């Protein structure tokens, strides 16, 4: 799956959890879930579960540790889908 397509799906996934509209409008690869979108850290778990469902992958603890930004998350999704 192309990076752009993953980011698009990820945008839909994070939408219900964002608390900073401005940050969401400008969401890009560089976006940080907590600093830019002000997502509550408890909701990061929801995002991880949603990502697993949407892309039909399993996210292990080591990967989860890095999932604070769009860039890191896209990388992990690509790795898992290609594995």
């Amino acid at each position, binding site marked *: 799956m192309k990076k752009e397509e993953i980011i698009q799906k990820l945008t839909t996934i994070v939408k219900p959890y964002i608390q900073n509209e401005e940050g969401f409008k400008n969401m890009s690869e560089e976006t940080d879930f*907590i*600093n830019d979108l002000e997502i*509550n*850290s*408890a*909701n*990061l*778990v*929801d995002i*991880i*579960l949603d990502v*697993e469902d949407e892309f039909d992958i399993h996210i292990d*603890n080591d990967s*989860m*540790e*890095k*999932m*604070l930004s769009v860039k890191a998350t896209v990388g992990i999704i690509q790795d898992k889908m290609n594995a």
Partner: protein
Amino acid sequence: MLRIGNDIVDLNLAKTQSNWQRPGFLEKQFTQKEQAAILKSENPFEQVWLFWSMKEAAYKCHVQQFQKRFFAPKIFLCKILSNQSGIVQFNNVFYYIKYRISNNYIYTTATEKNDIKMVSESFFIDNNLNTTKIIDKKIQTYFSSVVQIKKNALGIPFIYQNDEKTPKTLSKTHHGNYGAFAFILDNES
């Protein structure tokens, strides 16, 4: 220098913002032991958010110490010691937890040593618009001269006086209608 972390959970918001019974939710962030404690608790919902708040407060303390952000709630191991204290273990580092549960919120602080002298206050916030301002104003009341609160790139807040960073370690937290802060006294040495 001693560090501090704190965390507040608005229980009414937690009810709607997260579904702890969602498949996978507990498994991703709690150890087997913690999951068992949650499931046999008289109030599983409250137990989930107490553990979560302990992990979050300990994580904030940890980030100040190790200067690196990550998301790994499962490796912060919670142990309840009493109805107001506990311990969180991260590898071989221990964080000392004090907590308070009211009908509306859970408030937790984590420090590197037990019984550290700290200032901490939790409060109701009427609306969410100017949360940062409200919390910073409350902190100001503990100082005779003007202070500024600035966060660094890791999101760690610091207290500045006359544009100079003070050695006091500070932690701020906000969730829904509640906010809090905690800082360590006598951290100058």
